[in-house]
């Protein structure tokens, strides 16, 4: 029988949404996925049968090396306030700060996974001056360090694996765990801010169904309109490292597909964009946050060219809730014009 991998899941300064997202996993569901990968769930507060007195026993067994902790999943930022005491989040029934427990277990785990952007970088709980002094496990926003320090390596010589996203997609979490179980996950698999490359080597923009509107910068001005959300409504999909529009959420969805902006929730510091989330900041009428690796002058030149060339169909539909001119109507119109 293949070796069982022990997984323990802790929750701290987050919202529990990544666990909810994980329960959305399909083909297979989370319990079957764990079973198939020989994952033994030592503890997850939302799912475990264990009566609570088993929890302290499990912790003791890990810290005294009686049980090997293969995978430590932490969901939620480490709360270090007030004044570095961690008193804003005490472990129920144990009377120690959760941050201390995370530190202890991270010294024992073979792999340490930060589930969601708060755990990775602080996330929404860090926003607005970080009043509860939360830290990501190895970052505070873009700054390296975090709770465990920039030099931290788990027992397998890996830094924290940041499964960033708000929430994380169920497959981003499961595929990382499954790859670890197959011994296929090493430092080559993570990007510069320690996220699994398999989902961050794409942009959220890739496969966006609004791509034709984007090509012509035919933009929606208000929520509900069909056009591209980048110029006015705050969409950062052209900068956001994630495969949302390829992989899709809950079978069918993505933020732009439902008509609202990608807010780049997989990025460190997404919670403080420096502007209203759904409003594109502009300088002299030109959006500030352009695609990361495109020279600005080229972008502006191409945009003005494509805007000038925008077909009537796209211009009209972009500012409408329903398709006013369908491609076949447009084609007939052009044919009629040519015949004249």
């Amino acid at each position, binding site marked *: 029988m293949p070796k069982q991998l022990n997984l323990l899941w802790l929750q701290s300064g987050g919202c529990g949404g990544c666990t909810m997202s994980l329960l959305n996993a399909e083909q297979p569901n989370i319990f079957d996925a764990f079973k198939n990968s020989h994952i033994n769930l030592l503890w997850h507060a939302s799912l475990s049968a264990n009566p*609570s007195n088993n929890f302290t026993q499990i912790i003791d067994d890990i810290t005294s090396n009686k049980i090997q902790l293969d995978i430590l999943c932490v969901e939620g930022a480490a709360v270090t306030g007030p004044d570095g005491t961690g008193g804003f989040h005490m472990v129920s029934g144990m009377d120690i700060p959760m941050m201390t427990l995370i530190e202890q277990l991270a010294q024992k785990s073979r792999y340490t996974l930060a589930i969601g952007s708060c755990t990775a970088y602080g996330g929404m709980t860090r926003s607005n001056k970080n009043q509860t002094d939360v830290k990501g496990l190895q970052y505070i926003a873009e700054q390296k360090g975090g709770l465990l320090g920039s030099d931290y390596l788990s027992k397998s010589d890996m830094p924290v694996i940041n499964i960033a996203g708000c929430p994380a997609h169920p497959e981003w979490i499961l595929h990382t765990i499954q790859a670890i179980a197959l011994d296929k996950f090493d430092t080559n698999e993570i990007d510069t801010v320690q996220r699994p490359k398999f989902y961050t080597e794409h942009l959220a923009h890739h496969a966006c169904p609004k791509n034709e509107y984007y090509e012509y910068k035919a933009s929606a001005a208000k929520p509900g309109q069909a056009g591209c959300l980048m110029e006015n409504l705050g969409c950062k999909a052209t900068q956001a490292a994630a495969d949302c529009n390829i992989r899709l959420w809950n079978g069918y969805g993505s933020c732009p597909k439902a008509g609202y902006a990608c807010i780049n929730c997989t990025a460190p510091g997404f919670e403080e964009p420096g502007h209203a989330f759904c409003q594109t900041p502009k300088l002299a009428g030109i959006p500030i946050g352009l695609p990361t690796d495109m020279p600005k002058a080229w972008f502006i030149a191409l945009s003005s060219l494509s805007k000038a060339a925008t077909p009537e169909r796209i211009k009209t539909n972009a500012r409408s809730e329903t398709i006013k001119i369908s491609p076949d109507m447009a084609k007939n119109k052009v044919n009629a014009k040519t015949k004249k």
Partner: protein
Amino acid sequence: MTRKISLGPLNRVEGDLDIQLSLDENEQYIESAQVKSTLYRGFENLLTGKAVMDALAITPRVCGICSISQSVAAAKAIADFAQIPMAANGQRVTNILLASEMVADILTHFYLFFMPDFANPAYSNKAWSEEINVNFTAVSGNQHGAMLKARAEFLHVMGILAGKWPHSMVFQPGGVSKTVSMSEQLKLLGIIANFKSYLEQVVFGDKLETISNIANQAELENWQQSHPFNHSNFSMFLGISQSLNLPGFGASSGQLLAFPAFEQENSHYYQGGAFLDNQVQALATNNIIEHHKFAKLYGEQSSPVNGFTQPDINKADAYTWCKAPRYNSKVMETGSLARQFINGDSLAQSLVSNTGTNIHNRMVLRLVELAKLTLQIERWIKDIEPKNTFCNQVELPKEGQGIGLSEAARGSLGHWMTVENGKISNYQLVAPTSWNFSPRDNQGVSGALEQSLAKLPYQSEQDKQMLQHIIRSFDPCMLCTVH
């Protein structure tokens, strides 16, 4: 000398929960209980100084379990502040999404949180023990795979209409940012059709219409008698409930609160109100005051209209981060039972007037609500008019206040927002479990759960297990509670 026992960390609830019991000197029964919420994030303060519409990005992240209800309350608070009506299609889509979150929650709660407590050695002498172990043991129970599959496929509704779940920003004060085509409408009906067959075959073993039409306690008992224990998961629950006398446990004060929810043209699907002094009264939100005495927060008390949340970690006597909300100074219970009772639902009225608030009634009414809401979701989908607008556009004033009320799966949720110079200057939210799991108020009166645990025996393993059933019968969400 009383002995104090901690039940924490209490698993299979949403978020961090500890409960401290004080036993009598002979350690035979519980003298009193203290419900402790152990995580403070200060979400209300994260909104101060932000743009008004940012509430739609920040508040869903209060809670990944009740994310849509937070979004709905925020959108309503902004709509109230800006005084704009919601487009009819926007109402329908919002209602479908909020109801879908509730439906998914009821399933998660029943299968993953509540039922596994009966797969426990304390019940090894019961005739149903083995069957329940096989079906409902946490993580490995036979029922979980089918439930998770049905739930995930049902939540494709979220993929189509909300983009993702949790943490969608489709919700707008004037409606939703998603428009729905006729083809999507038909796809949604297909998803519901599949989900209905799971509910009818596995959960209830009967047509949803039949379950929804059970009109009183006698009809429920007739239904139970005409179906064997292992007919469906619903009949298994009814059998266990009878065997353990679950109607006899978990009573709260019986004062009930519900906010209006699921706005339809000129009406609400749930009208909301307060059940006090044996009558349902119209809701008046200015009756809501939050008491701070036993919360590790500054101040004595505050109204959510101009409330404040500032940590005071060393405050004497304080034992939780949760404030104690009171309505007309009274302890209230909120949730599925409360909103159906207040809405005049005949089964809820019959059950509650016969046996009060208890584990059995909370669970039965939650499951029946699952059937009713699923049918209602189907109606709302059919009502969508793809050619009409989904979102009224909004002009925001620079100053003012807005109140956003809704129901979440667990009960009444309210957001109170103040805007100055175009920015949010104060934001307060009062969540369902803040009511149900509140600490003592400034008069020393316990909240609903603390009341329902006091004076219970604490000797046998079955006594101890009963506490777990009572606690989970409220379906607590600790993340919303403190926020």
